[in-house]
């Protein structure tokens, strides 16, 4: 933006607009003032003339003598008056010629005469006498003119001053805006080129533009973080997919080089199919996470019991735990109190991933406990294990796609399980927390109990409480559908 763009800035335009509005209003105000003052001063002059005229018009017989006497008292004729016959010839007074023709009778008029080498303004009126003579009475209105002149002068200079200050102000604010806009456009251009660390310049102050700048900077922080995450995920995908693809390629090349019999070929093809399936599986896991994160599946929510799903998961994994010598147990203190709306298959998959991990990382003879609870208005499922646990500094990172702890590099898995759990939890408004349960870790999925449900845990008689709960659930079910 250049200086020539100044008139295009909003602040400059606004300043000029306000200047014009203010100027117009002031002009109107001064005009009114001027008009009022003028008519007041004129009317007082007219009043004096009127008073004088009474003296003359009431003594028409002695008018010439009176005029002459008065003329002697006013030799410089600052109050010119004169009597003229009907043809306009001078009869008496210190005014020797009619100031205006046609003879102004019955109305006030203004004229000027030379006094002390200068033109001086006068205001007068003409009267027609009974004998058709004309009497002109007038006053010098130098002071009124002086006052009016002063007023106009003050107005003009004041106006010029205001205009100058206004324009200067407009230019200054406009330039400030131009500078800030220049800063912002420069920063935006650098961001567009790819420097995402760049931020819009901020100033002290809370102007509207500054607020916008803070907002945009916050948005840029988010974009930068997201870009970094996307880059991280891309790197991880590239890394994690290269390994099986390299294995696939190696196996195929080896098959072509060495294989002689068709059985060996079949084995090589089977191995290649298995590797390809694994890669496809990773991709579909990524797509599923994306789909779950998208939130579109909320449309398929039904009323489910978190505890029932957790029990099903435990039952599902029981033979595997048995095979690995891990004791897998399920307990709940709130049967059928853990109802909420959700997608049963997704929740099964999420809890299943947690239990699968817990079994995988528990030593032989270890315990994996799954507990469904309803406590202080919160419902949830907790999975506890005796495994090595997750160090506190890694707890955030394990939820990222493909993240795997160094110790677990040798165990099978895609590193996507917990990302899916996190996505499913978020979709269901469940809070996912990982903490330590000495020696292992505890993963909890927890949320507020749905409003239709009573606060469980402190019911005096479990059986009665349960029955009561059932009716309220039935009610919720019928009103929910």
């Amino acid at each position: 933006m250049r200086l020539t763009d100044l008139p295009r800035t909003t602040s400059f335009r606004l300043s000029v607009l306000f200047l014009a509005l203010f100027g117009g209003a002031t002009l109107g105000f001064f005009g009114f003032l001027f008009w009022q003052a003028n008519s007041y001063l004129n009317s007082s002059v007219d009043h004096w003339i009127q008073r004088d005229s009474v003296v003359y018009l009431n003594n028409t017989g002695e008018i010439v003598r009176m005029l002459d006497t008065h003329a002697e008292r006013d030799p410089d004729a600052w109050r010119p008056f004169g009597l003229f016959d009907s043809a306009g010839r001078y009869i008496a007074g210190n005014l020797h010629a009619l100031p205006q023709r046609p003879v102004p009778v019955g109305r006030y008029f203004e004229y000027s005469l030379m006094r002390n080498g200068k033109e001086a303004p006068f205001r007068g009126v003409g009267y027609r006498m009974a004998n058709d003579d004309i009497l002109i009475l007038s006053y010098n209105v130098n002071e009124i003119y002086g006052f009016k002149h002063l007023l106009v002068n003050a107005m003009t200079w004041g106006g010029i001053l205001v205009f100058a200050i206004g324009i200067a102000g407009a230019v200054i604010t406009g330039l400030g805006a131009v500078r800030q806009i220049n800063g912002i456009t420069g920063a935006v251009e650098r961001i567009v080129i790819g420097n995402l660390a760049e931020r819009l310049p901020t100033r002290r102050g809370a102007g509207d533009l500054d607020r916008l700048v803070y907002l945009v900077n916050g948005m840029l922080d988010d974009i930068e973080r997201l870009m970094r995450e996307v880059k991280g995920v891309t790197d991880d995908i590239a890394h994690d997919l290269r390994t099986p693809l390299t294995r696939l390629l190696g196996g195929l090349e080896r098959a072509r080089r060495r294989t002689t019999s068709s059985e060996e070929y079949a084995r090589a093809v089977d191995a290649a199919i298995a590797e390809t399936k694994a890669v496809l599986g990773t991709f579909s896991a990524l797509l599923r996470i994306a789909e779950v994160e998208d939130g579109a599946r909320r449309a398929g929510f039904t009323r489910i019991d978190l505890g029932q799903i957790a029990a099903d998961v435990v039952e599902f994994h029981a033979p595997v735990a048995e095979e690995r010598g891990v004791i897998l147990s399920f307990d709940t203190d709130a049967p059928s109190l853990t109802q909420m709306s959700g997608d049963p298959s997704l929740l099964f998959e999420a809890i299943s991933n947690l239990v699968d991990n817990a079994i995988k990382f528990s030593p032989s003879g270890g315990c994996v406990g799954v507990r469904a609870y309803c406590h202080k208005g919160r419902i949830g499922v907790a999975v506890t294990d005796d495994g090595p646990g997750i160090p506190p500094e890694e707890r955030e990172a394990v939820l990222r796609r493909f993240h795997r702890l160094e110790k677990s590099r040798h165990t099978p898995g895609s590193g996507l399980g917990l990302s899916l759990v996190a996505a499913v939890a978020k979709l269901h408004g469940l809070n996912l927390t990982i903490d330590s349960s000495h020696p292992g870790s505890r993963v909890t999925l927890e949320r507020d109990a749905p409003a239709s449900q009573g606060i469980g845990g402190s019911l005096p008689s479990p059986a009665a409480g349960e029955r009561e709960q059932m009716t309220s659930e039935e009610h919720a079910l019928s009103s929910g559908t």
Partner: protein
Amino acid sequence: MTRVLVVEDDAQTAAEIAAALGDHGFEVECAHNGQDALDRATADQYSAIVLDRMLPGGIDGLTVLSTLRGMSVDAPVLILSALSAVDERVRGLRAGGDDYLTKPFESLELTARIEVLLRRRNASVPDRQTMLRVGDLEVDLLKREVKRSGRVIDLLPREYRLLEYLMRHPGQVITRTMLFEEVWSYRYDQRTNVIDVHMGKLRRKLDEGGLPSMIHTVRGSGYILRAPD
């Protein structure tokens, strides 16, 4: 010969489905849009229809399906869709579909599901049975008792349901996903080997005493129950 109509707009996918079904001894015809599908399905008798959810030309899969059902074409319909959302599946089944499969899928999954659909349709009154028998293995559905060669086999409830499902479809490939869906009533692509472990336990119980194995693994992702030769 069993004739299957495949309604799929993508020529390559259609060819792959046709090939997979052809390998299983089905006679396959393809339609590439909704109108074509309606014309063929009403003019001819098909044993089953594989129907893509999204079709070009204004008539989509669900419209084709409800139109066919309205014209009392009652061939079993397997809906294919790229959308895995639960309500998509529910809508498909509500429109008169018999099963639902999300793309991408394995050909084994498709053929196994078609076989089950056809068998279910052919066995007109299957649920009246009180006794299932395959070879020397028998399941008493009323007493929930399993016997092999006259010896009672003690099964856990889940194992019993696994076996019952396999016994209802003897000689047919049943995939893990189908088992998970039928026996556990949850639906997602199981990538763990947990079902294999369940199956292994069931198999050991059935084959106890050195009897020949009846449950066979098929290409790593399915099972088949057969009377020993």
